[in-house]
């Protein structure tokens, strides 16, 4: 019986690594402090492996075959993908994978009604490159990336994403070896609109409402009220990346999230935030 030792969610907008100096001094300070704190919490939990959940930005799956969830099964990952390197401004890196855990998720997921696709080759853009740069800058914790469909309708419903998270947590607890320490890291959001009319705007009201709901720890209410329609209204092109956070929410169960930081960072074209769900091992 393995243990989930940390569950976190955070924005991955490329401005955080690519042009943070364009943000105000206070935005820079608060985000850097928040991401440092989140990294400290994550590393302090001493995970053997991180399961990442994030939007695939139309980078890995051709239009004729879009999986809702694809588990990365490789033993080693590299990033950023070449075309994205100067955009995210993150030096090339390598991080180990964890094929055994990844294949457990795929195999056991199928038995639990989850049709995980899987792949040995996945290109990384801001989805992992930005979070890893801040949270695990030594790239020393193996990563099982789950690339999900957050922006190509029909999207997996919030209820389904929460259910997937619950299933992942169940598989870890029931199908992984005792002593294994697993962290879950969802990345994406908050409000942003790449490709839409709100490209240079952030919906702070939506973001704070969503973070407040997470802090209340009421998954049923979140599934009911944080609809895809509301996410798209807050920023059509990207806000539904919060579906990845719903997976983390499902794994977290009834725990109340703690907001580590939030900034409506118009300069980064994204509502930037990070939360952590307190786990027993940390309390």
């Amino acid at each position, binding site marked *: 019986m393995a243990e989930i030792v940390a569950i976190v969610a955070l924005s991955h907008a490329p401005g955080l690594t690519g042009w943070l100096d364009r943000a105000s001094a206070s935005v820079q300070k608060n985000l850097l402090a928040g991401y440092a704190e989140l990294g400290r919490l994550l590393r302090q939990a001493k995970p053997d492996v991180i399961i990442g959940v994030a939007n695939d930005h139309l980078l890995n799956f051709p239009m004729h075959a879009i999986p809702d969830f694809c588990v990365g099964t490789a033993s080693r990952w590299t990033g950023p993908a070449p075309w994205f390197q*100067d955009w995210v*401004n993150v030096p090339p890196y390598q991080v180990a994978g964890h094929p055994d855990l990844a294949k457990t998720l795929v195999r056991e997921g199928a038995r639990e009604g989850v049709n995980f696709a899987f792949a040995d080759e996945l290109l990384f853009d801001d989805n992992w490159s930005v979070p890893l740069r801040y949270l695990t800058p030594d790239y020393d914790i193996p990563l099982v990336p789950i690339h999900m469909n957050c922006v190509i309708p029909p999207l997996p419903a919030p209820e389904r994403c929460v259910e997937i998270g619950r299933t992942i947590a169940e598989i870890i607890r029931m199908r992984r070896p005792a002593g294994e320490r697993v962290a879950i890291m969802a990345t994406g959001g908050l409000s942003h609109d790449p490709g839409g009319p709100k490209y240079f705007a952030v919906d702070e009201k939506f973001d704070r409402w969503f973070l407040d709901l997470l802090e209340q720890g009421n998954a049923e209410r979140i599934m009911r009220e944080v609809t895809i329609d509301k996410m798209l209204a807050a920023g059509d092109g990207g806000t539904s990346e919060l579906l990845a956070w719903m997976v983390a929410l499902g794994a977290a169960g009834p725990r109340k999230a703690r907001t580590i930081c939030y900034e409506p960072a*118009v300069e980064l074209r994204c509502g930037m935030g990070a939360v952590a769900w307190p786990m027993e091992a940390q309390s």
Partner: protein
Amino acid sequence: MGIRDFDRTLASNRMIFEVRRDAGKLQRFHADLEATMAAYGLTDVEKAAWRNVDIHRLGELGVHPYFLPQVSRLIEGAAYNHNKSAAARLYAAKMKIAGEE
């Protein structure tokens, strides 16, 4: 225009998808747009929108919204993509939306 309105069968979507993933295809895209568009089977209206870098029109035709800022970066470069960068200003101008003041 929004993610619910895009046309996943549109040839331009396949072209953008592939050129970002493959250095050789990206080089050919920059070297010879006409040949690249022909190779992917773009329609005449798609080709006209590309020739004019008409990002808004590409969106109307069904290019995925997420690709639209990437079109501006394919044209103007992606580094240091802040709100007043050449790529961001191109996007704002073509989409007829206000950029950062």
